């Protein structure tokens, strides 16, 4: 059980790390598109890692409810499809309405 808890903690810590990096990137990057790079990628893996950690925890501590980990697996699956699609849609909308991409050397927007 101790080993399980260590692995779960590692997954949770990794997820929190990537969510934090995504937020820092949102604040540091210079324009709309690069900020989307930070949040769009880090939120997907960060959320996925956290849910996967919960899944392992549930699998070993409450194994008489086997349906819950399967549901969490579905949740990860849907996040990994929905998140890049939403990122792409937001990006496309910004590009269509004429938000200029930032080039190296320009002032941050």
């Amino acid at each position, binding site marked *: 059980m101790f080993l399980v808890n260590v692995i779960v903690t590692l997954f949770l810590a990794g997820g929190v*790390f*990537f969510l934090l*990096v*995504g937020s*820092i*990137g949102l604040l*540091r*990057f*210079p*324009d709309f*598109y*690069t900020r*989307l*790079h*930070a949040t*769009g*990628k*880090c939120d*997907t*893996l*960060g959320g996925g890692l956290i849910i996967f950690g919960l899944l392992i925890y549930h699998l070993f501590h409450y194994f008489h409810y086997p*349906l819950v980990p*399967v*549901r969490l697996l579905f949740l990860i699956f849907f996040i*990994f*499809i929905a998140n*890049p*699609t939403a*990122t*792409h849609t937001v*990006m*496309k909308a910004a*590009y269509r309405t004429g938000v200029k*991409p*930032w*080039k*190296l050397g320009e002032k941050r927007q």
Partner: protein
Amino acid sequence: MNHRGKGFGFLITFILMFLFWIFLSEQISSPFHLIAGVISSALVAFLSHDLLVKGKSEKILLKSWRLFRYIPWELWQIVLANIDVAYRVLHPKMPIDPCVIEFETSLRGDFALTTLANSITLTPGTITITVEPRNGKFQVHAIAKEPADALLVVQTMQKKVAEVFMETN
């Protein structure tokens, strides 16, 4: 697609959605949950049955198997992408040089194009802006020069997706 095909698609979608509902709710004995499930499954099947079941679905088992083998590689790419973004975010000088690139693929199928577009968005340093289904043209925003070259010159991802869906690139 003829009329019978549409009804078939509706039925398949409805059954799948209702099974998924029962799987999620676990309330088989409660009539309220079952009736609510029937109503919402029917609504979803009515609105989007043409998304799930397509008219032509040749070699669907082989394609699913190849897609299944593609997923671990894609997951590894996602981890690499996140480490890449984390490096660029946390580096004091922020080594970014964004550019918009365009390229064409020979892929035409809806599902193949969607898979490639989402894979591009999830892998290191690139996000899909627009996809033109008629001529397979992609517009991609890259955060620096190296990820742009990976798509334009090396083309690993296009080859992998083309192999999964058996459309020669």
